[in-house]
């Protein structure tokens, strides 16, 4: 590039900057307003999220856990090998430790299962709240929204109140059936056992059902009730009306709720930390740091997690019929 080109470029940038700061047209002034309105957010996003995330990527490539030093791809290699080693047929010949593959698989299947259940329950609740004349509807809405205010650790405690060794339901069933409550408790069991996972499942649902419900209420508010009434008058059963009239209308909202709930499920940490029932990615991330401070691996895990979440969320919202009400 010659100096002449350089000067032209500098001039162009300067002219563009001047147009932005001292605009002459109404359109220019509007552009200046938009920039002024958006700048605080971009500043917060860059300082608070973008720079730390770039640093996180750099940490995952560092040779030392204590400082940014050198360049290595070993941590990503470990993750990739671990995922392959966890695969049923392909990984059987590999000697790599499949632990990260297992952790990623746990996050995915557990997140998907809790998402499907939560959104299904959310559809039913939103349906009832919208279509039935329930008594004290305002109070019901307030009560269902209450768990949204609870951090994950408190959700874990709520599950313990129900299902721990001293929990209400555990003791109730134990008294009725005459068994030791220890055999029935859903929390405090060894990690990975069916009882422990069931307890965690209910914990995830406790946080996700209210969120899914309020995502779906937005779509339900836009349903054309005339069409529903017409279908009913023409002899469709309530189920047929829901299946062929209501569901097609709320489908974009349901897809959106599935995507966002899945994202929520992947990011849950506090509940898992307290209940320690299943090793998911966020939990493993903490364990890598708590035992041995394995920063490169932890960062690599976080980078993979973040990249997946962003791609999945944006692709999901952009390239499906998903609609995010609100």
């Amino acid at each position, binding site marked *: 590039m010659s100096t002449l080109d350089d000067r032209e470029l500098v001039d162009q940038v300067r002219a563009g900057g001047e147009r932005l700061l001292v605009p002459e047209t109404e359109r220019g002034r509007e552009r200046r307003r938009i920039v002024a309105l958006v700048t605080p957010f971009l*500043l917060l996003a860059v300082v608070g999220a973008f720079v730390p995330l770039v640093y996180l990527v750099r940490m995952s490539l560092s040779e030392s856990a204590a400082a940014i030093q050198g360049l290595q791809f070993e941590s990503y290699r470990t993750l990739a090998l671990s995922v392959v080693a966890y695969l049923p047929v392909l990984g059987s010949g590999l000697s790599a430790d499949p632990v990260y593959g297992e952790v990623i698989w746990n996050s995915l299947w557990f997140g998907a299962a809790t998402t499907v259940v939560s959104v299904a329950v959310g559809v039913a609740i939103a349906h*009832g709240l919208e279509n039935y004349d329930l008594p004290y509807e305002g109070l019901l809405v307030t*009560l269902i929204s209450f768990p*949204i205010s609870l951090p994950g650790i408190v959700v874990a405690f709520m599950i313990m109140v129900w299902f721990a060794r001293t929990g209400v339901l555990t003791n109730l069933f134990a008294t009725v059936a005459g068994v030791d409550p220890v055999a029935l408790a859903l929390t405090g069991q060894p990690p990975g056992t069916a009882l422990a996972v069931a307890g965690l499942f209910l914990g995830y649902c406790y946080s996700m059902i209210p*969120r899914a419900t309020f995502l779906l*209420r937005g779509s339900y508010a836009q349903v054309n009730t005339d069409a529903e009434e017409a279908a009913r008058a023409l002899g469709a059963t309530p189920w047929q009306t829901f299946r062929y009239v209501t569901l097609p209308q709320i489908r974009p909202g349901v897809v959106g709720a599935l995507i966002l709930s899945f994202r929520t499920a992947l990011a849950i940490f506090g509940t898992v930390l307290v209940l320690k029932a299943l090793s998911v990615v*966020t939990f493993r*991330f903490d364990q890598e740091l708590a035992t041995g401070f394995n920063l490169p691996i932890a960062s690599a895990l976080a980078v993979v*997690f*973040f990249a997946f979440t962003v791609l999945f969320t944006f692709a999901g919202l952009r390239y499906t019929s998903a609609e995010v009400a609100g």
Partner: protein
Amino acid sequence: MSADTERAVPDRDPGRFGRLSGTLGRRAVTALIGATIVFLITPVALTLAASLAGDWTGVLPQGFVTLDNWLHILGLQESVGAQRALGSATIQLPGGYSVTILGASLVFSLGVALCGVLINLVVGVPIAYAVTRYDFYGVGWLNTAAVLPLVPGVILGIAFLRTYPGLPSAAALVIGYSLLKIPYMILAVQSSFESMDLRQLEESARSLGASWPRTFLTVIVPNAKRGILSGAIVCWTLAAAEFNFSYMVYSRGPRPFSIFLYNNITNSSILQTAAAVSLYFLIVAGVTVALQATGQRGFSIGGVR
């Protein structure tokens, strides 16, 4: 259903499933709503009750009413595990004076969260206005990025800690809280803006001679005060109890409220934990009443993420 509509129904067998859904569908959905509310709210009620109980070894808490658990949690009673109480902090003021603050963890978290909310106001209101009022290149992407918390608190926490190692815990918490809770602010303010005719409002004010900054600050913002208020209340409460980020960032200095909750949930007896968690429930209950006054039902901001 009246006799008239009954006759209008065509003579066609809807099938066994159809008949079943006709008779049981509504009842099943209502029962599901009831069961969900019981599942969500019973432990809350039991926790509140247990915080006043003396014993919980059977099915239900017993031995009412005692304030021991509350006194212990608030740090007003010397007993085993007092290091997990809310604690008090003594601040030395210049001139030999000193102030002792009771409930240090709670006061600290509320203060830090309030700073986070102030940032959220400065950041959230303008961008909510920009994406609602103007159409510009990338507005859809910006909107999506603004209302979705894309980075989980745990990951953001460690990244933050390593990127700005010299930053005091409190400052890191302020930035982290404001970033993690800003979607709630934007969604609340946006829903207020969407119910207003922004273009007309703006043009009327401009045609009466107000400059654009003045229009924004004295016409647009006051009109959206309900949304701004409910967004601020929700952000404040959620930030004061934020755990994942705090857990990673907190190292020394005053202990955030959520860490106090965590220490109790993992280590204290169930009754003392019940009192600690109840303390937060009482805050949320107060906040819910305040939200009602702004026309917001609980924490249900436009489908919270």
